[in-house]
């Protein structure tokens, strides 16, 4: 008996170290200076946990080593090869893998425990935790795959809606609950009901991400991340393993916090993001209007260059369009050219610009823009009045003054970057098509605003060429 206690202490002590390293690792992420060290601590924690696990009587080495080698090779290859602009979908897919793994762990443990119980009922806490792990993990798995497909543009980024969508989702959820209750009280068909619940959870994961549009992805990705975290924590309850509980809870808390933050930045509740099918309705109403001809002023690359060259302060406002056009390196070159001429260049980052929280920051970091040139919305908004030029690179809804002024606008109340307060506004845009949400942007009709039409990268490269010859 004593030896058993001793062994348990050894593993659990190692797992405790892992938990501490994970927490410290996240703590060091509070500054860009120490973040990398934090990530290394977190990696070390993972290694400690794996060693402690290997020492617990593992015998199926071919399966374990084979799976690890394949998973590591593929994970590291794609992790290295993926372009920075494709980071949101990469995070989504890795997240989905974790969710799927959690669901399978629950399934395996249920099969094992059922076999060992010889027909005796299983304890409720075990069956509840197993069911929660499986359902949440499976939703996260399937939802992440749909999010990946949308972000990778293998399917439309527009919301996919059909009549009675919420009713269908509710029915699927009810069916899952029915099966879950049956598993929890473990009727004779426990495993069959478990499998049905697992399958339906996959369906629900698909159905719930379908109506969510591309611009709402920051919310969805952090929510799915939180789901996998919670699923991992519940695996801890299934396996009686504290390190899983601690790590899962940390991730669940982090994902939930970011989800709420993103919702707040859009002035929308998370429920509205998930069930509002934002973008679908407004897009159709805008199309129905036939789009009355809007008077806008367009500008050439040379004129843009002249306007920028003689400015004192320029604020660049990047959006998803910059990511799509891969224009971040050109933007950085523009910044250097302007700074050589003594122009002060700052970047204004809206919290939901792009497809995941902090998306723009990563892209600009890739292009060597120092992180202290990047300003949050609250910091930079008072600054626009002093700026000579606000240069909007592929951002739309986050600059729409209607959010501030027009009570009838669907985005009324959403905090925006006050680009219209700058002396001049230059908007880089592919065409006059309305933004993702399909809402007209009165900024473009403002007499201070000039449009530079075309692909963001090509436009900025043309401005850079003009600047060099000046």
């Amino acid at each position, binding site marked *: 008996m004593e030896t058993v206690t001793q062994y348990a202490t050894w593993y659990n002590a190692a797992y405790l170290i892992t938990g501490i390293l994970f927490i410290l690792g996240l703590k060091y992420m509070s500054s860009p200076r120490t973040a990398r060290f934090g990530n290394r601590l977190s990696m070390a924690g993972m290694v400690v946990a794996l060693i402690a696990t290997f020492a617990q009587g593992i015998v199926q080495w071919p399966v374990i080593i084979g799976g690890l080698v394949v998973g590591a090779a593929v994970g590291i290859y794609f992790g290295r090869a993926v372009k920075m602009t494709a980071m949101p979908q990469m995070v989504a897919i890795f997240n989905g893998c974790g969710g799927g793994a959690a669901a399978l762990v629950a399934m395996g443990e249920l099969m094992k425990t059922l076999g060992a119980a010889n027909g005796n009922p299983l304890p409720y806490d075990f069956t509840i935790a197993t069911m929660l792990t499986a359902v949440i993990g499976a939703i996260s798995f399937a939802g992440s795959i749909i999010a990946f497909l949308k972000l990778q543009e293998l399917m439309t980024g527009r919301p996919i809606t059909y009549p009675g969508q919420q009713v269908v989702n509710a029915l699927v959820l009810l069916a899952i609950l029915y099966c879950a209750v049956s598993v929890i009280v473990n009727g004779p068909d426990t495993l069959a009901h478990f499998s049905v619940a697992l399958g339906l959870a996959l369906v629900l994961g698909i159905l719930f991400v379908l109506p969510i549009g591309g611009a709402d992805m920051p919310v969805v990705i952090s929510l799915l991340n939180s789901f996998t975290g919670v699923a991992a924590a519940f695996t801890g309850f299934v396996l009686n393993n504290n390190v899983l509980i601690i790590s899962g809870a940390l991730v669940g808390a*982090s994902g939930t916090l970011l989800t709420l933050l993103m919702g707040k930045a859009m002035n929308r509740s998370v429920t509205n993001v998930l069930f509002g099918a934002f973008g679908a309705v407004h897009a159709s109403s805008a199309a129905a209007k036939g789009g009355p001809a809007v008077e806008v002023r367009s500008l050439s690359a040379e004129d843009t260059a002249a306007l920028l060259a003689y400015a004192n302060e320029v604020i660049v406002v990047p959006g998803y369009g910059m990511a799509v056009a891969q224009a971040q390196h050109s933007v950085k070159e523009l910044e250097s050219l302007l700074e050589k001429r003594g122009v002060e260049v700052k970047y204004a980052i809206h919290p939901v610009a792009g497809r995941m929280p902090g998306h723009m920051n990563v892209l600009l970091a890739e292009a060597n823009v120092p992180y202290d040139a990047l300003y949050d919305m609250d910091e930079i908004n008072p600054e626009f009045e002093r700026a000579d030029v606000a240069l909007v690179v592929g951002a739309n809804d986050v600059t729409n003054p209607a959010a501030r002024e027009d009570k009838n606008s669907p985005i009324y109340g959403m905090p925006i970057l006050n680009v219209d307060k700058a002396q001049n506004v230059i908007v880089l845009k592919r065409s006059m098509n309305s933004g993702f949400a399909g809402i007209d942007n009165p900024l473009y009709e403002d007499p201070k605003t000039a449009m530079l039409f075309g692909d963001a990268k090509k436009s900025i490269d043309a401005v850079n060429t003009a600047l060099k010859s000046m």
Partner: protein
Amino acid sequence: MTDHLLTEITVFILAVFVGIEVIGRVPSTLHTPLMSATNAIHGIVLVGAILVAGLSFAPLGSVVGFILIVLASLNVFGGYTVTERMLAMFRPRAAVAPVVKKDE
């Protein structure tokens, strides 16, 4: 409810509080690496995967067990690789600026 379960719930709730406290301090500029770092951390489910697929009695069989380990290790290795790559790019002004300063 057993004392054991109560202890586990305690651990869970305290960890949630620690998570909120620690993550609330991460600046928005690091939100993408943060998501990716926490993404890698929930790869800890690999521990559960190894325990389910690796012991002498492996209920899922070798094929599903193998898929399970692949999924969990994709999460771990992919997650850390991507986070590391992103964090390596973040530089303060001091490290970038000298090029510009020479011209002044």
